[in-house]
């Protein structure tokens, strides 16, 4: 019994070290003034550096705004496309359903550089390159497989039986969607929103290629700092990046967990 407990503790510890260690290093990098090899710990720590940088650096603020704008736009567009698709796949039988099921996962299967190069070509053709909609559509393409899968897995639990009941009791399709479908599908929706938000936030290549440099998001700005060895600034961006990702996710989670009845 005791050995089992120790083993469990060790596994937890290993997991914590693996996950928290990189976070700890990033955090230390962000607050350290000098931290050179072979020192184990930084020689000088400046707790206010991160906040000063966040408040005063206009580039950082612009990137933050840009990332969030694109992420919100992507979440909205992804849900608008993924919801009806997931409903169609889980509720109805139709010709071409199997093909649609495969098509949904194509952005994950085909190498992203191939998808984006072709997408860029199309965007240029229709004058959408460099536009907000163009970049959001590129992000959406990579979010759709996750969002559709998460929504589909949740919708298939009950299929359309409660929607049918709602319609029979006199509700309109719109009332049914907002009063029955969404509340019952809250967990799937939460997953889809979270995943889309994260995927959009971490999009680097798509933003650069389709955005024509008009959208310098956090991930786009972070990348050169890391490659050029400017770890301190990269760490500040990294922490900001984590915060703007984790805080909304936490808020959505709190909303889903505490509002209404917990469902499958």
């Amino acid at each position, binding site marked *: 019994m005791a050995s089992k407990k120790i083993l469990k503790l060790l596994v937890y510890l290993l997991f914590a070290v693996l996950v928290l260690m990189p976070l700890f290093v990033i955090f230390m990098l962000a607050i350290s003034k000098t931290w050179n090899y072979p020192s184990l710990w930084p020689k000088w720590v400046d707790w206010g550096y991160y906040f000063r940088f966040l408040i005063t650096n206009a580039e950082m603020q612009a990137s933050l705004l840009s990332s969030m704008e694109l992420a919100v736009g992507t979440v909205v567009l992804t849900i608008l496309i993924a919801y009806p698709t997931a409903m169609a796949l889980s509720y109805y039988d139709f010709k071409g359903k199997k093909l649609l099921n495969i098509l949904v996962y194509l952005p994950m299967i085909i190498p992203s550089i191939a998808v984006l190069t072709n997408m860029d070509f199309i965007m240029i053709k229709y004058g959408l390159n460099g536009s907000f909609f163009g970049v959001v559509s590129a992000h959406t393409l990579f979010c759709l497989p996750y969002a559709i899968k998460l929504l589909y897995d949740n919708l298939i639990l009950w299929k359309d039986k409660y929607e049918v009941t*709602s319609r*029979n009791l*006199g509700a309109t399709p719109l*009332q049914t969607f907002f009063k029955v479908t969404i*509340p019952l599908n809250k967990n799937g929706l939460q997953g889809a929103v979270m995943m889309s938000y994260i995927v959009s936030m971490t999009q680097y290549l798509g933003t650069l290629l389709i955005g024509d440099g008009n959208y310098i998001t956090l991930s786009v700005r972070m990348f050169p700092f890391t490659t050029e060895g400017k770890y301190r600034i990269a760490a500040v961006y990294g922490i900001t990046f984590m915060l703007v990702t984790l805080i909304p996710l936490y808020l959505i989670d709190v909303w889903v967990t505490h509002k*209404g009845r917990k469902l499958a």
Partner: protein
Amino acid sequence: MYHLDNISQQKGNTHILHGINLTIDENSIFAILGPSGSGKTTLLNILAGIDRPTDGKFLNEDGQVEKGIMVFQDYRLFPHMTVFKNITFGLKVKKTNSSELKQRAKDIMETMGISELIDRYPDELSGGQQQRVALARALILNLKLLLMDEPFSSLDEALRIEMLDFVKELQRKFQLTIVFVTHYKTEAYMLSNKVAILIDGQIMQVDAPKQLESNPQNLAVARFLGQANFIEGSLSNNDFVSPVYSGKVRTVTEKGVLYLPFSGQLQLNKTEYPAFKGNILEKKWMGSNLERITIEIDQKTVYCDLASESVDENKTYQFYFSKLPVVF
């Protein structure tokens, strides 16, 4: 009066319903009885407006397309809503004002005996309570036509009888027309005095329960209703020949199957229709002063229900038909 006017349903290449024509009296309970897969739920879904038929219409007395409110077999109470919210859902989507909504909910919950469940969620209710909530959710809409899909199949025996009586009481109180489908004939007989038999998407017979049992119109109905001996033999000009019985019969169809229901057809008292002489192999008590008798005739066995202690085991008796037997 409600009219089902030539209703057909086809999905892909499968014909589920074939030209259903029925009339249903208002303020009555009408049962649709049939085996699993016969198209009962499909028909009910059409009456509820959930499915659209490929052909035909469901009309009310004024010739307008009608739609009933359904109580589903699995009740389908919204799992994310309390009992109160479930019950008032139909009123809420019709934007009924709050005070009227509350009053009507209070009234219906009192009628259904579920006032104390107001804040509970569906997963905190028993099967019987869920059914009452589902009924309340439909009845609060002041509906005329209530549809019930296998309403009692998931209830235990005692609760089933209680709910049967309760539904009858509701029908009288609210002057409802109730159409329900079931594959349990006792349920259909106890609740309704007009039963339609639906087999393979076709209405085979519409009759009172007693008439169905004594005069099934064809072999499919007779076999579905069960509780009968089906004896194969040959037929020529109303003369039937088989190891169990040979003699005059009434021919309905010419498949050569003698229909002998367990009860009502065979008796010991002499009539003008002698049946056969048989040895009593076994007696089983069936309750209500009835025994199921196993009779052996020329190495064939026939079953019949007789009053208790009418016969003794291992003795031979002459049996008679109460009326001329039917051959399908």
